[in-house]
C-alpha cells in the first residue's frame, strides 16, 4: 500500500481514537468531575472488579475496545515508523522495521482482542 494511503488511514485512525479514547478517559478517569452511571454502575471506583464486569457485559464496550485497539495500534506504530524512517535508514533496515512493527501490531491486537472477548464471556457468565 502506498504511503499516501497509509497516511490517510493514520489520520482516520486518529479521528477514531479521538472519539473512543475520549470516551474511555471520561468513563475511566474523569468520573469524579463528570460522573456517568456507566463509570461506576456498582458504586466505588471505575476499575473495581464489579464495575469492570458490569461494563464488560455490554456488547458496545466489546466492539469499541477492539475498534480502539486496532486504531490505536495502527496509529501508534505507523507514527513510530515515520519517525524512524526520517533518519533515512537503508532499505534492509526499513524492511526489518516494517516487519517488526507489523508483527508487534498483530500480536498485541490478538492479545487485546482475546482479552476483550474473554472478558466479555467472563462478565456474561458472572
Amino acid at each position: 500500500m502506498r504511503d499516501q494511503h497509509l497516511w490517510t488511514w493514520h489520520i482516520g485512525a486518529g479521528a477514531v481514537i479521538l472519539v473512543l479514547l475520549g470516551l474511555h478517559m471520561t468513563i475511566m478517569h474523569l468520573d469524579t468531575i463528570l460522573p456517568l452511571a456507566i463509570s461506576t454502575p456498582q458504586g466505588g471506583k471505575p476499575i473495581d472488579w464489579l464495575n469492570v464486569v458490569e461494563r464488560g457485559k455490554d456488547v458496545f464496550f466489546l466492539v469499541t475496545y477492539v475498534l480502539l485497539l486496532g486504531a490505536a495500534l495502527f496509529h501508534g506504530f505507523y507514527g513510530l515508523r515515520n519517525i524512524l524512517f526520517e533518519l533515512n535508514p537503508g532499505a534492509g533496515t526499513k524492511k526489518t522495521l516494517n516487519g517488526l512493527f507489523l508483527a508487534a501490531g498483530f500480536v498485541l491486537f490478538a492479545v487485546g482482542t482475546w482479552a476483550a472477548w474473554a472478558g466479555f464471556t467472563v462478565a456474561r457468565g458472572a
Partner: protein
Amino acid sequence: MIENKGRPNRLGLKGWLGGGRWGFERYLYTLHRLTGLGLLAYFVLHIVITSSRALGEHAWARAMGSVTGPVFRVGEYLVFAAFAFHALNGIRLALVELGFAIGNPIEPVYPYRTSVDEQRPLAIGVMIFAAILAIVGGIGFLK
C-alpha cells in the same frame, strides 16, 4: 507520510528536537512526537496489564494492585495530559493539512509573508483548550 525524496535528515535527533527559527509550531511538532511515543509505550503496557481481566477477579486485583500508589497516579495524570495535548494538536494538524486556517494564497511579493502567521491563532487557541482540559483533568485526578 509522503516518501522523503529530498534532503535527508542529516541532523538526526537534533533535527527532531530543535525548533531553530521555525517558531512555536515547530516545538508543538516536537512535543507531538514526544507525547505520541509516551502514549504508545503506555498503551502497550496498558494492553498487557488490563488483559488480566480475562483471567478473572483475582488476576485483575493482582494486576491493579501492581500499579497503585502516588507514582502511578502521577504517571496516569501525565498520560491524560499527553492525551489532551496530542489529541488537540492532532486536530490542528489535520485541519492545517486539509487546508483550513492557513489563509488564502497570495502573490509572493517581497517582503514575503508566511502562512504560519495565519495558522498561529489556531495553534494558540488549541493550546489554550488543551491546557484547560489538562487542568480540569488534573482536578479530577486529585479528587
